[in-house]
């Protein structure tokens, strides 16, 4: 998959790419594990953007911090494209 313009612009932002990598490389991650690496503002903004583009999804839990984020098929394609560009 070649990165389209929207995704290319998205991943030019280091924080967004960082959050995406943090979810996509292990395939699944709990929100609390992301909170130790990124600020709440960055997380809220980027998670919603990534979810909006269907690159990641969120499985709810009893406590919000324990929600699980996981990568979708489109997200896996994006990871492959980033790896081909040696960006991941």
């Amino acid at each position, binding site marked *: *998959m070649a990165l389209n313009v929207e995704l290319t612009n998205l991943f030019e932002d280091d924080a967004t790419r960082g959050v995406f990598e943090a979810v996509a490389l*292990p*395939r*699944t991650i709990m929100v*609390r594990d992301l909170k130790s690496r990124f600020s709440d503002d960055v997380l809220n903004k980027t998670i919603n953007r990534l979810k909006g583009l269907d690159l990641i999804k969120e*499985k709810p*839990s*009893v*406590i919000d*911090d*324990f929600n*699980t984020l*996981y*990568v*979708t*098929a*489109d*997200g*896996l*394609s994006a990871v*492959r494209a980033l790896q081909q560009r040696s960006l991941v």
Partner: protein
Amino acid sequence: MLVVDSGTAPALTVLPAHLGWALVFAVVFSFVLASIEISNVSKKPMRSCLVFPSFLYCSIRAFGNVVATLLASVLVARIDPALANFYWLFAAFLGIFSFETILKNMNVTVAGAGILTLQAWMDKALNAASAASIESDLQRTQIDIEKLAHRLSKIKDEELNAFVITYLASQVPNIVDTLEKAAAANKANPRLHKGYAVATVVSRSQVIAFLKEQEN
């Protein structure tokens, strides 16, 4: 050799005897390779990869390998007859690896634009299978959590609260109060609610060890 008698025409050799075994081997090997690939991409155990998109990906791969094996068998039939017993193995091996080569190099273009890049389409099928495996694994985990939460909800309040505090207090302040208030606000069983929280965060082996202690 299977021989087709076409009436007045001379007997025509169409299927070498080893072909049946070669095709079986190619199909089985395709499924094994595809399963390993899906598990590797999704980073989930094989048992989570038993989903329909995986079957679809395995089938596409098997189809390609079968066609390549059929083609390879024609070449293999020309190898030294002393090795005839292994024709099926050579045909399957050649077929599977030649299909890999075709996948990586075949790119049909019209006016400079790629219209059929086999590898790209196989990647899409692989990603779909891997994503389905990831979701399947999460569902399996959720079922485990539900079973553990129900067992935890039968533990006495004092013991359950102690377990909750031990593992969750450092991550969420006033965790017992928070969970009990959330359960009350939703008219839910507080012990079951706490059970869900603990089963979600604490490793399965630790929860089971705790349950065994309490249930004995």
